[in-house]
């Protein structure tokens, strides 16, 4: 491993951080990251310092050798013959048993991306494993099994293609990314075997978001047990429960905490009370547990294709007005639409780079909720984004690329299945695309609760369209649209009993009174420029976080009722004694 690798991107930084965490010896100099079978047999181990590994690979051998001694004393002797003495010495063998190659994270990632090209015929979406030091590919094969004679047949064909290209791999098929990762990364007795001319391995994991039929397991390969593992529908909890906890993708620190508590398997981890987890484990660990249970969805971030769809315009006469730029963009969009229609793919994000006459570059990206081939929609969302661009000088060149996905497989519906929800979903997708591209991707989101006692942190907003520059996972649009628009016949009876919380929560609590020597609440409060007298106070409700929490909170909350009947949510900061207004029960 090269301990002085240059810091370039966040992914590579994460990889190096992970390596240093797993192999502390890497902090002191180069060390071994991975080994082949021959190297293992020679005694080289991952984490071993390079110098030690080299010595393992170049064993010392004792050979008898003639020594010719010459000295001033001996020169005076007769020259009848040379005197020779046999003395055992130690000489190092010059033959290396293994060869050493420098590792770089970026090279590994490039190699995986190249392997991904081999898999594109099997799945519309191919992405990298999200963990640091990725060694897996994730394929979404929803609906693809029947095209290849079943999921098992698909997996076998994929393994065959990899083998022809010189790779060996392991495949798992399940409903969630967490499950397939756990199956493919459970340690086996035999060490990993690498391709003869490269040092990285390819473990290909296949995930399936919708399962219909149970499939048989694949035959054993020569090097691994069970190179193809398929979890039948409904069997996921049992199958992953037996796996060791290292397969859960929890951060190293959380694994150490759990090991200290005697938690060794995923079954033991999942049996822990979920409400206690946030206080003991990190947020990432809690998220991983939810993913293992299938409570939180994960999405695959697609890898860009090697032969991207693109269009370019440049001219010695720059475009000076918005109308000119829009005309150029329309022309480019039409070219893009033609290319994607020819390749039978669809556009999910449109990315344009505008080069100004001065050389400055501006990036314009527009996303859609449902992948589209429509030039009209692509141009509309791009136009909305263009309106928000701070453009102050003429543009001399525009290049446009797209993030593409294969056209969604149209599912044959039953004869009498209701279809009245299809058009509203499509209209909603178009609305979300318009709003997100005019006001920004963060402006349109769905809401979920997270376990945090602090009111301002108890809700998580998930943008429906991920930012094109974001490294976070893109949401599954079909599922989101269906969830948003699906009617609930039992909606009237779905009232949840929750703690009383205001409908309007101020983004920043407003100070209403200073510290009182006797901690008395304020008698008056100013709202909308008018003074109101507080006539009733209900509480306190104490909200306190652990001392080690980032931005801890120590507050006593009260519901204050004014003389006009208005209900306010105020609190006293226990550390400073200052009173704040936090919300209105509107």
């Amino acid at each position: 491993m090269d301990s002085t690798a240059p810091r370039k991107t966040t992914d590579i930084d994460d990889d190096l951080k992970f390596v240093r965490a797993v192999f502390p010896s890497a902090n002191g100099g180069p060390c071994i990251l991975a080994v082949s079978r021959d190297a293992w047999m020679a005694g080289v181990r991952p984490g071993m310092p390079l110098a030690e590994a080299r010595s393992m690979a170049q064993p010392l051998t004792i050979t008898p050798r003639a020594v010719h001694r010459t000295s001033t004393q001996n020169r005076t002797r007769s020259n009848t013959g040379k005197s020779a003495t046999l003395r055992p010495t130690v000489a190092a063998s010059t033959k290396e048993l293994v060869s050493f190659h420098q590792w770089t994270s970026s090279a590994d990632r490039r190699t995986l991306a190249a392997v991904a090209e081999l898999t594109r015929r099997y799945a519309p979406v191919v992405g990298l494993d999200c963990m640091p030091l990725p060694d897996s590919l994730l394929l979404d094969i929803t609906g693809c099994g029947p095209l290849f004679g079943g999921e098992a047949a698909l997996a076998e064909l994929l393994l065959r293609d990899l083998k022809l290209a010189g790779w060996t791999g392991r495949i798992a098929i399940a409903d969630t990314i967490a499950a397939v990762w756990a199956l493919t990364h459970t340690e086996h007795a035999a060490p990993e075997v690498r391709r003869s001319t490269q040092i990285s391995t390819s473990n290909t994991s296949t995930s399936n978001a919708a399962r219909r039929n149970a499939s048989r397991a694949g035959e054993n390969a020569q090097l691994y047990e069970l190179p193809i593992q398929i979890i039948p529908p409904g069997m996921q909890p049992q199958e992953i429960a037996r796996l060791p906890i290292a397969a859960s993708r929890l951060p190293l620190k959380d694994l150490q905490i759990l090991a200290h508590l005697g938690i060794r398997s995923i079954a033991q981890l999942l049996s822990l009370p979920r409400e206690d987890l946030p206080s003991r484990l990190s947020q990432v660990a809690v998220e991983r547990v939810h993913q293992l249970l299938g409570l939180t969805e994960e999405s695959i971030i697609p890898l860009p294709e090697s032969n991207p769809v693109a269009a370019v315009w440049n001219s010695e006469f720059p475009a000076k007005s918005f109308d000119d730029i829009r005309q150029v963009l329309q022309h480019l969009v039409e070219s893009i639409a033609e290319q994607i229609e020819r390749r039978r793919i669809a556009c999910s994000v449109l990315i344009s780079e505008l080069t100004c006459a001065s050389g400055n570059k501006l990036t314009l990206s527009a996303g859609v909720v449902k992948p589209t081939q429509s030039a009209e929609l692509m141009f509309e969302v791009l136009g909305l984004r263009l309106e928000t661009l701070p453009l102050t000088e003429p543009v001399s060149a525009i290049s446009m690329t797209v993030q593409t996905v294969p056209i969604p497989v149209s599912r044959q519906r039953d004869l009498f299945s209701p279809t009245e929800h299809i058009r509203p979903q499509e209209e909603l997708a178009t609305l979300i695309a318009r709003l997100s591209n005019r006001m920004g991707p963060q402006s349109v989101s769905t809401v979920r609760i997270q376990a945090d006692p602090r009111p301002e942190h108890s809700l998580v907003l998930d943008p429906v369209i991920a930012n094109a520059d974001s490294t976070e996972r893109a949401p599954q649009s079909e599922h989101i649209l269906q969830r948003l628009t699906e009617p609930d016949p039992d909606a009237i009876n779905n009232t949840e009993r929750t703690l009383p919380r205001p409908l309007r929560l101020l983004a920043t609590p407003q100070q209403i009174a200073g510290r009182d020597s006797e901690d008395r609440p304020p008698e008056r409060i100013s709202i909308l420029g008018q003074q109101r007298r507080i006539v009733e106070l209900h509480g306190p409700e104490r909200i306190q976080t652990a001392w080690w929490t980032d931005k801890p909170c120590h507050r006593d909350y009260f519901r204050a009722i004014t003389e006009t009947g208005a209900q306010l949510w105020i609190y006293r900061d226990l550390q400073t004694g200052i009173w704040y207004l936090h919300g209105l029960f509107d």
Partner: protein
Amino acid sequence: MSAAAKAEAIHSLRRQLLASQRMQTVQQILPTGLTSLDAILPHGGLPAGSLIEWISEDAGLKAASIALKSIVPMMTLHGCLAIVDEHHEFYADSARSHGIPLSRMLLIRPVYAASGVQAAFGLAQATTSRSRFVRQASAAHSDALWALEQTARCPGVRVVLMFLEQASSAVMRRLQLAVERSGVTIVLIRPASILNQPSFADLRLYVTTVKPALAGITERRQLKVQLLRSRHGLQHTGHALLEVEHETGAVHSISELADSKPATSPAF
């Protein structure tokens, strides 16, 4: 034509006009689940595809909570609940206690907006100059109104809710046209300062607090809802009494009504 014949013709014409009005207003009516409120609403519920204004006598009087409770039955239909949250204050967790599932909620927040209550407190942003503050607030308000209109035009949305303080007649007219075409229901929570302004709403409801002396039971807070305007159908006079639980903040109906009788003529 004799005077009697003329009177008969006018009476017949009035009956035909009323009948044609009722035909135009054949919309899906959904009872709110609050019996006292349904009793004062035309046809006993809220019409889908309409513009409804809830006006609150004062901030913090639970008008929005009552509005949310009243639209829960609309969640039995296709479409999502969109919240246009201009001031980034809407706390979705509270909506759950009124029966709104978070899975059906789409939250729309313009990228930059100053808190409405912060502005009311007269607190300037510490790191922003006054002029930039005003410009950004205007841009955010424009974006919010644009988002409201776009959302109201989308058949994939069942209900869109927004706290709207000020809006011009042109904006309100556009919203009215949008709901007529799309069938979306717009629910606007508005301050008492707009009471004297003309309304384009199908329904305008006014929420006030019941004075403690008249409330009787002091453990619970009572609210009065008056129907100020109904664009279609007949109008009941009177008001509905609702009560708010202290523990959970949930809103319930009180069955007694004050002086409720059907009117003999349309509201306008």
